[in-house]
């Protein structure tokens, strides 16, 4: 039986697709869902309106106070959480199968009837700003923000704001802003829900469709504009944070490719051979042989939803070993670019991918994540059935051509944060 044959799909309510995967686990269900409309879609006015709209959902509805919500969930041992990413409003729930109806009813109330009270927003903003201030001492976060700021202009979907700018944005959000965003973004249209575990598909669909059938259609503009990234130049950003014993370093550049491009998987595999896992080149040399870092890796990011993204290499080094670590990393990148990848490396990584796919199906979270991500990208479920074939068809010649075509080693951006001055 193929993977897709184990999934029950329902599209009977326009604008909502449900995927239900019954498994042999007893008594528990994991549910994840999303709708388009993340921080990017609020960017023209203030992207934090979107994230706060999600964080405020469990702070009270028109029907229940925040304490009634938490007591209902916690008395069942269940949880519901919301995260607003760049492109989506996401939610996840875990519960015992016997409590499914209560949890779905509550989830529906949280999504459709938030009260968005001023006093709750005020406390949440204070906590969020506290977290943002704390993240100023986070070497990885600072190196990452500076790296992306060098690659993308401010209005690009992959751009990131500085922590100080983000704090200002949070300070400026009002409950009226959030209510308005909620009215436009929270609705049917791009709504996907996936459930896996000890769950009956008919019962689940009846519950969720019954609860969401009164939602309006989304009124938010979901178009993604992708301005050109900044011109790639060889440059370096250094950010000093005192009292840090380890630095974070990003190296990379934008790539003129996204997941829908025919050469994407060739480039992705080429980069995976460089730094996709422990047995890839960077970990085997810079860590295992030379002992310069605890962790180093390389990958593609920001390439979904038709947006061209970037290639990055990330590693951590003590300040004393930073220069040596950078040189060792650069040597590996140069060798990889100049000489390409080898057939035996490709052969090994192909089986890594196909085996990982099988291992990833071992948990209800692994199942829902895989199906939801696939749906968010607008793919049919048979993409997952054909995934191993897609990987097995990758060709060494095309991979090395993709590396040469998309990577420009003479124009790398480097960003380092830590106690470096």
């Amino acid at each position, binding site marked *: 039986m193929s993977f897709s044959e184990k999934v029950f799909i329902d599209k009977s309510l326009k604008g909502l697709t449900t995927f239900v995967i019954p498994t042999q686990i007893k008594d528990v269900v994991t549910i994840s869902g999303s709708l388009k409309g993340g921080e990017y879609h609020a960017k023209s006015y203030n992207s934090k309106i979107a994230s706060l709209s999600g964080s405020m959902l469990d702070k009270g509805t028109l029907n229940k106070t925040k*304490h009634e919500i938490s007591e209902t969930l*916690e008395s069942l041992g269940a949880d519901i959480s919301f995260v607003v990413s760049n492109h989506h409003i996401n939610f996840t729930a875990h519960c015992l199968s016997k409590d499914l109806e209560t949890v779905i009813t509550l989830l529906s109330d949280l999504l459709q009837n938030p009260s968005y009270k001023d006093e709750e927003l005020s406390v949440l903003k*204070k906590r969020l700003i506290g*977290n943002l201030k704390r993240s100023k001492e986070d070497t990885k976060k600072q190196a990452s923000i500076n790296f992306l700021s060098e690659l993308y202009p401010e209005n690009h979907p992959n751009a990131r704001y500085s922590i100080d700018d983000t704090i200002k944005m949070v300070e400026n959000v009002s409950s009226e802003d959030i209510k308005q965003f909620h009215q436009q973004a929270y609705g049917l249209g791009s709504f996907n829900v996936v459930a896996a575990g000890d769950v009956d598909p008919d019962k689940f669909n009846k519950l969720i469709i019954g609860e969401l059938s009164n939602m309006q259609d989304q009124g938010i503009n979901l178009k993604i504009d992708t301005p050109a990234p900044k011109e790639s130049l060889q440059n370096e950003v250094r950010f000093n*944070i005192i*009292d840090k014993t380890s630095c974070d370093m990003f190296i990379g550049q934008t790539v003129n490719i996204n997941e829908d491009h025919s050469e994407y998987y060739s480039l992705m595999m080429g980069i995976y051979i460089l730094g996709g896992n422990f047995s890839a080149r960077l970990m085997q040399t810079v860590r295992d042989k030379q002992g310069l870092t605890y962790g180093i890796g390389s990958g593609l990011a920001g390439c979904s939803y038709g947006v061209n993204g970037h290639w990055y290499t990330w590693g951590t080094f003590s300040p004393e070993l930073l220069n040596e670590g950078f040189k060792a990393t650069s040597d590996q990148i140069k060798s990889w670019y100049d000489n390409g990848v080898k057939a035996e490396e490709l052969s090994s990584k192909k089986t890594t991918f196909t085996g990982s796919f099988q291992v990833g199906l071992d948990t*209800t979270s692994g199942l829902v994540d895989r199906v939801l991500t696939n749906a968010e990208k607008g793919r049919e479920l048979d993409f997952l059935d054909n995934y191993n074939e897609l990987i097995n068809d990758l060709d060494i010649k095309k991979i090395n051509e993709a590396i040469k075509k998309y990577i420009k080693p003479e124009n790398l951006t480097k960003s380092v944060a830590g106690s470096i001055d």
Partner: protein
Amino acid sequence: MSDLYHHIRSSQGIEEYQLKSNDLKVLMLKDQSTPVATFMVTYHVGSRNEAIGYTGSTHLLEHLMFKGSRNYNKEKGTAIWDELQSIGAQINATTWNDRTNYFEVVPSEHLEKAISIEADRMRYSFIKDEDRQPEMTVVRNEYERGENSPFDVLDKNVWATAYQAHPYHHSTIGWRSDIENVSTERLKEFYDVYYWPNNATATVIGDFDKEKTLNLIAKYFGEHKKSEHKIPTVYTEEPLQEGPRRVVVKRSGQAGIVAVAHKTPEGLHSDTHAIHLLGKILCDGKSSRLHRKIIDKGLATSLFMYDFPFKDNGLFITYAFLTPDTEQQVVEDIILNEYDSIKTDGVTQKELDRAIAQTKATVAFSRDGSYAVASALNEAIAIGDWQFYTSYLDKIKSVKTDDIKKIATTYLFEDASTTGWFIPKN
């Protein structure tokens, strides 16, 4: 069943065997939900078995166990990471106070490879000086990454203050100078003392054939003899604490942290389950007592407590990550007042029911996937009895409100406390 094993006991579908030839213990739980199996070997050695001069050795040795063994090494083109990652396995190892574990989550058809690798490195790891030298700096960077975090630094200081004689005094990663200077000979000695079949438990969870797997374990691990020496035990006991202790860490940072810790009994003590529920009533979830009094008031960005059961005594610690203008003393007072309130007035049945429901769901989800089961068993093995895992829920359900009040009074008293503050320096 194979006549190579003694069947020891069974509980909730989990079967325990012992290999007759060398006393290796084997735990098995069959679950054919997906064609995946987890193989894990737990050694009864952790940072509790270390002393001054070689703190962090258990963890450093764990790293060296990936560097090569008789049949799995780079020279033969069979390096452990390559062999396992090329089949898509999830692979890693972890070290903690009471145990070290090595595991592989594999497509079922590759289970034999995982068994073969773990058996080979149980007694035939190379542990070469030429491997230790670069790996020392790898581990040092792991230590440095931890030191970047004010929470990690405060947590190390709280344990080091609360425990003076017992080796829980030092964290699993060890002290920096010990990581840098411990000799390869010392690590090899450590390996030769503790890495034996009679000091280990192999756990298999997921989709496998029982008879075939028992035979494979016997085939690969059966070549090892049991140790000729008795595995040493830790005899150091922590002296009675006779007064409150405080520790302050000042460092560059943006916001403060408060930790309030109290000594708890050994993990297998009958009070452990009530202590767990007390932690949930105080800190787990948005309706918990401290969440309402600290988070809802905007005094902290987040809050959590941990009370992991260990082989010896542990700590019941509440951590609060303060918002920038909040003073440590304010939050410390709120935490202690809430403890006092429970000691005086106890908890309600509703609070207890909620904490039990939360635990029931956690236990149900601990069966979600073969790794989750193996991981939970691993911690139970570490404290001395794998049935701690299978009996956990029944014992949780038997806790009464009076038990919570009693254990709060027994353990949360001032003279057994250690309080830690992180104070950010601008």
